[in-house]
């Protein structure tokens, strides 16, 4: 085991898959000579050449659509959007094309494309550069939406995504690139898409989260533990298809739950998880199920204001205490 950052884990997954399969290539803005604006593909242009590491113009609609087209015709593109905010320009290419074609044309074509997109707030980038719009993409059947919270999962899930024959949006919360954790060395492992995971065991309350929300929840759980409250923390890892199994199982044990996400509260992941808990475990509800999410404002630039709007461990602790 080596302790590496999530950035390194993603880089390693990309490199290993490119070495493994000639049809895998990378395209996106500044992914080549620059090395990626988050330095995920640094050195790749020299290592693999311009054919497999392709700088594109600033053309999100074309990036989204051309990656899908290349996938239709036998390649495995990993298309990077500089940020998920810009991927919204390609919403039509992603959800209306890449994700629809297999079904709409009666399974005549596959679209094995991976769209990578860093996202999230907390870096003082202002309202247009700080979205966590994951649920917009997760709304549509036939697209898969993955968002890891740890280096181990990031590497294993990205490898699964690249090998998958389905179109996948792989969302990387930019503040998680620095998270460091253990990842096996010299082992070609994968993590299955569409399978949630118990990241911390506990018996007093269930916290359901993913991505940045998962790290915030783990920090909150550590604090709560010092006060004698043991939280079970569930990592959804994939938003679609959503695996509710571990969350429901945990809830049937704790009877209380808090859902944590960085996106806005309205119509969010929390809304979906709460709805499913009450549908599938109504008799186990012992207290209102709480949602901790981004406040309903466009994210402001000022650090103090921005932090007020975002989730943090204190808000999770507060929500837990309200229902215990």
């Amino acid at each position, binding site marked *: 085991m080596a302790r590496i950052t999530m950035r390194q884990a993603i880089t390693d997954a990309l490199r290993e898959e490119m070495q493994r399969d000639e049809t895998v290539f990378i395209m996106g803005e500044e992914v080549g000579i620059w090395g990626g604006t988050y330095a995920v593909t640094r050195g790749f242009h020299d290592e693999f050449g311009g054919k497999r590491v392709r700088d594109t113009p600033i053309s999100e*609609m074309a990036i989204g*659509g051309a990656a*899908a087209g290349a996938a239709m015709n036998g390649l495995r*593109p990993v298309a990077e959007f500089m940020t998920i905010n810009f991927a919204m320009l390609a919403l039509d290419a992603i959800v209306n094309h890449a994700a629809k074609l*297999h079904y709409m*044309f*009666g399974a005549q074509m596959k679209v094995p494309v991976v769209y990578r997109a860093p996202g999230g707030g907390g870096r003082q980038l202002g309202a247009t550069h700080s979205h966590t719009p994951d649920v917009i993409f997760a709304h549509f059947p036939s697209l898969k939406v993955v968002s890891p919270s740890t280096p181990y999962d990031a590497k294993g899930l990205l490898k699964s995504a690249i090998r998958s024959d389905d179109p996948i949006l792989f969302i990387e919360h930019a503040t998680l690139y620095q998270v460091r954790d253990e990842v096996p060395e010299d082992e070609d492992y994968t993590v299955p898409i569409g399978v949630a995971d118990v990241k911390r065991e506990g018996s007093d309350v269930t916290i359901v989260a993913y991505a940045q929300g998962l790290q915030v929840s783990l920090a909150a759980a550590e604090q709560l533990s010092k006060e004698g409250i043991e939280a079970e923390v569930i990592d959804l890892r994939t938003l679609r298809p959503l695996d509710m199994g571990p969350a429901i199982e945990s809830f049937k044990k704790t009877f209380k739950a808090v859902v944590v996400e960085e996106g806005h509260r309205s119509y969010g992941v929390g809304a979906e998880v709460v709805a499913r808990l009450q549908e599938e475990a109504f008799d186990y509800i012992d207290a209102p199920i709480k949602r901790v999410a981004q406040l309903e404002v466009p994210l402001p630039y000022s650090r103090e204001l921005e932090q007020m709007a975002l989730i943090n461990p204190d808000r999770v602790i507060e929500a837990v205490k309200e229902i215990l």
Partner: protein
Amino acid sequence: MDKEMLLDWYRQMVLIRRFEQRSSELYQQGKIGGFLHLYIGQEAVAVGAIAARQEGDHVITAYRDHGHALSVGSDTGRVMAELMGKATGVSKGKGGSMHLADVERRYWGGYAVVGGHLPLATGIALAEQYKGTDNAVLCFFGDGATNIGYFHESLNLSGVWDLPVVWICENNQYGMGTTIERASAVPRMVDKACAYGMEGKQVNGMDIIDVYEATREALQKIRDGQGPQFLEMLTYRYEGHSMGDPLRYRTKDEVEKWREDDPIGILERHLLQEDIADEVELEEIDSAVEQEVEEAVEFAEESPLPQPEALFEDIYVEA
């Protein structure tokens, strides 16, 4: 140009026209749902351009796609079955009139979001270049698509990466009911090509021989290493944008004027005047087509509807 080929073009154009006329009737009888966009008047473009492709070349188009499906050789009965939403349809009844595809014939389908398939064409071409083949993509789209972002981003990317695409603008003079003059800052679609470093050519899209020659030349230039090409096919749709179009935006005289240059009529005159074929031969083709279309309708009507299980099939490749 050999006789067999010319007669086959004639057969294909008559097939498309007859197919579209029957589709129109079936739509009015409520047997076809959704939107229906007829290709009548534009037949020479799909047939002539697709005739110029080599075996590995790809075809992709917008939602007025019946003609392209028949030109690539899709089964007439299965195309009609798709229009009727039957399980035997080319897209298993899940696509409908606007979403016909036949990937075995390298026909990637009709696309109903204006411009949405242009970057797909770019990517399909990228895959051919990546694999080192000399195959190209024929990407058809309407004049209306030239004003959307997809058009500019896709043509630019194909220029930057030198991708093997023939961009074929089927200029039928209207984007729905809006004339080119009211929608585009330049009236000639071909003038947009230079912004992407491409050669462009205006072609009489009513004359199938011109369409064929221009497309063949464009494909040759691509295979000679001259990069993506742009063709503007000047054409006209006789019917409305889709069924139920009130046609308030044009006059009957205008339609009649274009009908004088009917693509089937032009080829027919050529065949007869040059003594390539006689009227008997053409009538035989007409009757064979008539029968083929009737058999297609029969096949489609008798085909089963999709089973309820199909609703949840093929959402993902890996469930």
